């Protein structure tokens, strides 16, 4: 009897959430317990967010705390900066990371710098959540990842969940963080069927609130022969590649960065020191970004840990093409990761 109850209790505790639902749940919990938290963005009210991450919020908290905005990214993200400086905890959405061009100033020159410019006397505790990712033919202005762009500019933390457990914990951590946090979710990991979701992103999440520490990477698959480092959708490609490599007797370790700023260089280095081989996978553009940063981290710390030249699997330095065959030719994939491994072994 007791055993059946335990199994049942275990089953009720392990509800699977999509990333969209996980984000909304985390925000809702913080809004219930902290009056300072409020949400702004385009279509985040009754629609529940174009990507489902604010569903249920306006119904529970009302239109004062869950505000649809005009198409004024500088205006409402700037308002988030001012509200945060005045003691609130805004969660504001930039619908597509690609749109950062129209509001980059207020993010990188104000949100990210006001703490520093004030010598720490003024904080900007806001979360900017934004969608990223390609693979569903949305064209070159609606498919970018922009990871390198945000990570490169000092003063803002950047998190990139690959699954709903991390998504929920990172959102809670981001809201509680006294700094501006850029929360970059991938459209094809959200659980929105019309974007063709990667099912591996929808995993069990505790009901109670919890945090995932910002700045900590996670080894999501242990291995000894090669380290594959990635983030977001890339983690799923890496896991698929690792599965295929395993059937060829190659033991791949997969590291999910989870955060870009702060970057868990120690964790990545420890893994590469163990395996001696490195492939970095990034859906963002190849040059001047994440892949280069990870490789530089290893090389400058101790190049002797590398038994072979590290490889990069990233989106080429081209605008993202519309036509599906071209888009998929350009996107990283498990096969490209395996090909990169084979190049290393020659």
């Amino acid at each position, binding site marked *: 009897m007791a055993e059946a109850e335990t199994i*049942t209790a275990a*089953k*009720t505790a*392990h*509800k*699977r*959430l*999509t990333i*969209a*639902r996980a984000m909304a749940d985390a925000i809702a919990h913080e809004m219930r317990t902290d009056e300072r938290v409020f949400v702004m963005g385009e279509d985040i009210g009754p629609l529940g967010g174009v990507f*489902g991450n604010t*569903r249920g919020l306006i119904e529970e908290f009302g239109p004062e705390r869950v505000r649809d905005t005009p198409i004024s990214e500088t205006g409402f993200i700037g308002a988030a900066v001012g509200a945060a400086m005045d003691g609130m905890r805004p969660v504001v959405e930039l619908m597509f990371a690609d749109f950062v061009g129209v509001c980059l100033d207020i993010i990188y020159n104000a949100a990210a710098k006001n703490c520093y410019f004030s010598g720490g006397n003024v904080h900007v505790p806001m979360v900017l959540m934004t969608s990223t990712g390609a693979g569903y033919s949305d064209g070159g202005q609606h498919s970018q990842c922009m990871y390198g762009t945000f990570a490169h500019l000092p003063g803002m933390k950047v998190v990139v969940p690959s699954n709903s457990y991390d998504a929920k914990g990172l959102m809670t951590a981001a809201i509680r963080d006294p700094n501006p946090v850029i929360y970059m979710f991938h459209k094809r990991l959200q*659980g*929105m*069927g*019309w974007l063709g*979701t990667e*099912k591996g992103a*929808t995993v069990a999440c505790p009901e109670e609130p919890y945090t995932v520490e910002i700045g900590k990477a996670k080894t999501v698959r242990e291995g000894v022969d090669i380290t594959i480092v990635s983030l977001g959708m890339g983690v799923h490609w890496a896991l698929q590649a690792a599965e295929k490599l395993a059937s060829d007797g190659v033991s791949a370790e997969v590291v999910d960065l989870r955060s870009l700023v702060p970057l868990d260089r120690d964790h990545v280095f420890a893994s590469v020191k163990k395996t001696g081989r490195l492939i970095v996978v990034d859906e963002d553009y190849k040059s001047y970004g994440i892949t280069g940063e990870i490789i530089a981290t290893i090389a400058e710390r101790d190049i002797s840990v590398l038994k072979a030249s590290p490889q990069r699997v990233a989106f080429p330095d081209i605008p993202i093409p519309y036509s599906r065959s071209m888009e998929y030719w350009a996107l990283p994939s498990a096969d490209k990761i395996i090909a990169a491994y084979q190049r290393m072994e020659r």
Partner: protein
Amino acid sequence: MADVRIPTDLWDDDTQAVITSWAYDDGTVVKEGDMIVEIMVEKSQFEIAAPASGTLHIRESEDAVLDRGAVIATIE
């Protein structure tokens, strides 16, 4: 025993729905009102709550394409 169905009141026409994600495994005990499954109709996602408390018996799996009113699970 209660049926979990594709709702009939969320859209008007004969467009079919697809199950995009079950929140629980078959055999899990759920409470009335728990969100247990997400379905998609064209571009809209809907979250379906359990109509009763009890053990969930899943009849249709993820990616199944169904008509309005179709039974996708039972709860006993």
